[in-house]
């Protein structure tokens, strides 16, 4: 065993682990900044532009402030669960990134590097499962606060997240039909071989997945669990300081995760666009990771755009939407895709 291979065998996993933790964190920082700036521009304001270049360091300044804030635990709170829930929420969204590939394999000095920590034949299932664990953090947090507003927020959140998991799962299945695999890397490679992204083959799957994804992450117009005009701050009303920041960061990390999944499942992951058009072959010059980032950024922008435009759903309409529209449509979509797949 030469020194070089040893270096690669030890160093590369360490770097990868660091990258996989850093990737969502950096994305969260950029996203928080982007959200505030984009919403500001939509509303004809400037948004934060003082700290760092164009206010890019504002999220870090905010986090620093939160770090030094007093950590208040309500007297009547269940201390164990109260402290545990931000951790749970955070772990669930960060852990899922371990199974999210950040790009295709590439070579460095004759050594092939896979930019993911773990590749599993059921990677997609694991990501969905891990991100769903976050709902425990929300319900524990709402319950342990021992206060009415957080409790109502938590109840809403659980009902909402669990309901929207169903159309989410049903649409994911249609992708699995085509890719014949639940391995995220294989799904992207399949789109490369098919020379068409699944989003164009399965537009309804994509739409239902995206709507459910917004609801899963509790974002506008489905941000009922934390509807500030009714529930003050929803399930994290009683949290302060870094614990509050954990909820906040986890929510944004979750957004990044859902956007990554949309890109991986429906829009070719790190593949450059228009692979069939020879005149646009130069697009392949950019490394896959850059294309991946551009696509994720596009969907994150969509999140923010929607938030700047739409009013909030009321709870009964939200549940009606999922059970009366999205679930039947997702089922129908599933059956049609299955039949089409069988006939082809």
């Amino acid at each position, binding site marked *: 065993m030469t020194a070089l291979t040893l270096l690669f065998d030890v160093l590369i996993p360490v770097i990868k682990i660091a990258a996989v933790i850093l990737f969502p964190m950096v994305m969260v920082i950029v996203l928080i900044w982007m959200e505030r700036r984009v*919403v500001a521009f*939509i*509303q*004809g*304001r400037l948004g934060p532009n003082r700290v760092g270049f164009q206010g890019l360091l504002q999220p870090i300044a905010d986090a620093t402030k939160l770090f030094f804030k007093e950590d208040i635990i309500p007297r009547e709170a269940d201390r164990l669960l109260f402290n545990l829930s931000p951790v749970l929420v955070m772990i669930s969204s960060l852990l899922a990134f371990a199974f999210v590939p950040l790009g295709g394999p590439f070579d460095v000095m004759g050594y092939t590097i896979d930019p993911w920590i773990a590749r599993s034949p059921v990677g997609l299932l694991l990501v969905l499962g891990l991100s769903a664990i976050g709902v425990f953090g929300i319900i524990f947090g709402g319950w342990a606060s021992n206060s*009415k*507003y957080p409790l*109502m927020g938590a*109840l809403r959140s659980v009902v909402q997240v669990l309901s929207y998991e169903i159309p989410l799962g049903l649409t994911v299945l249609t992708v699995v039909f085509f890719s014949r695999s639940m391995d995220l890397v294989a799904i992207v490679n399949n789109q490369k071989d098919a020379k068409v992204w699944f989003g164009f083959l399965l537009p309804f799957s994509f739409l239902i997945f995206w709507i459910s994804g917004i609801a899963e992450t509790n974002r*506008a*117009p489905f*941000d*009922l669990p934390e*509807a*500030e*005009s*009714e529930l*003050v701050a929803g399930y994290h009303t009683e949290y302060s300081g870094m614990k509050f920041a954990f909820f906040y960061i986890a929510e944004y990390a979750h957004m990044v995760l859902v956007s990554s999944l949309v890109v991986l499942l429906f829009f070719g992951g790190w593949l450059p666009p228009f692979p069939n058009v020879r005149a646009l072959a130069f697009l392949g010059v950019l490394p896959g990771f850059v294309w991946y980032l551009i696509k994720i950024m596009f969907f994150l922008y969509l999140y923010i755009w929607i*938030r*700047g*435009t*739409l*009013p*909030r*759903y*009321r*709870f*009964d*309409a939200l549940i009606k939407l999922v059970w009366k529209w999205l679930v039947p449509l997702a089922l129908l979509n599933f059956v049609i895709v299955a039949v089409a797949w069988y006939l082809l």
Partner: protein
Amino acid sequence: MAFKEIELNMGPQHPSTHGVLRLKLRVDNEVVTSVEPVIGYLHRGMEKLWESQTYAQIVPMTDRLDYLAALSNNLGYVLAVEKLMGLEVPKRAQYIRVALVELQRLASHLAWVGFMANDIGAMSVLLYAFEDREAVLDIFEAYCGARLTVHGIRIGGVPFDLDETVAGMIRRVLDETPKKLADIEKLLNDNRIWLHRTRGVGVISAVDAVDLGLTGPALRATGVPWDIRRDLPYSSYEDFEFDVPVRTGGDVYDRYLVRLEEIRQSLRIVRQALDRLPPGPHLAKVPRLLKVPPGEVFHTIEAPKGELGFYIRANGTERPERVKMKSPSFINLQSLERMSKGYLFSDVVGILGSLDIVLGEIDK
């Protein structure tokens, strides 16, 4: 899931109770069974205080009642005093008053649309509406130097004549506002979520509305065509052409549409007032220290939020013996429970927003 009915305190520190209102809600599975508004957190004892002030000193204090429509409060009080004194106000002053008060209605309704949309979650509308409102406040600033608590109307007329710069600014607002209003309407009017949150929510019948004394746009949204500007004209309102928008649904959506249409009518009135501004003085000859002859008077005007009335009892000195104010927000708030019962907890926020209350006026 079966829950016991829980009591929920909304406010006085809550993002959407518009100040320091506290609502004691009883909620059964998110369905509201009773609403009890608890007021008084902003009580400053205005009415008692006025008994120790001269008539002219009271005018700026009325700015602080409904601070989103200071000029309307000024006008309501000043008209009551003038009625008691039998004072004839110059025609030019009356027209300038009408222009100012209608601009104030514009500003107040715009702020309302913004807050209301924000309560329902459409956060961008708030800033669009405030952009337009800002232009109106700029006019007030150019006219008399203040933006919010303007003190822009005096006993006997108005403090300043309407010069060309201010008139030009007003005309610019008259031209710009309809476009911006169309933007807001495009964003909300046909939005399915907005319709779902407002249509058929917080319904109150015309009979109930009259019984509870509901006034202003909220009353007109139930189908009662009562507008004091038209039905009991004051300050030369009879000279102007305008429609009184009336809708019959009595829900949050109709209150929203009535107010938007009122903005358009206000623009019409302001344009007429500018075009037909008669020559003459802008302030009647009024002694520095007013002595109002003994007697009592009650006079109401159509403020942006509804019927605003002032009752004054004078005893012949320079200070009133008693002033009582009939504030539209206070009256309108009492119909909140009738409107919210049976609807969801989330709707209370929208219904409360649709009433357009200002705590400065409720608590006085």
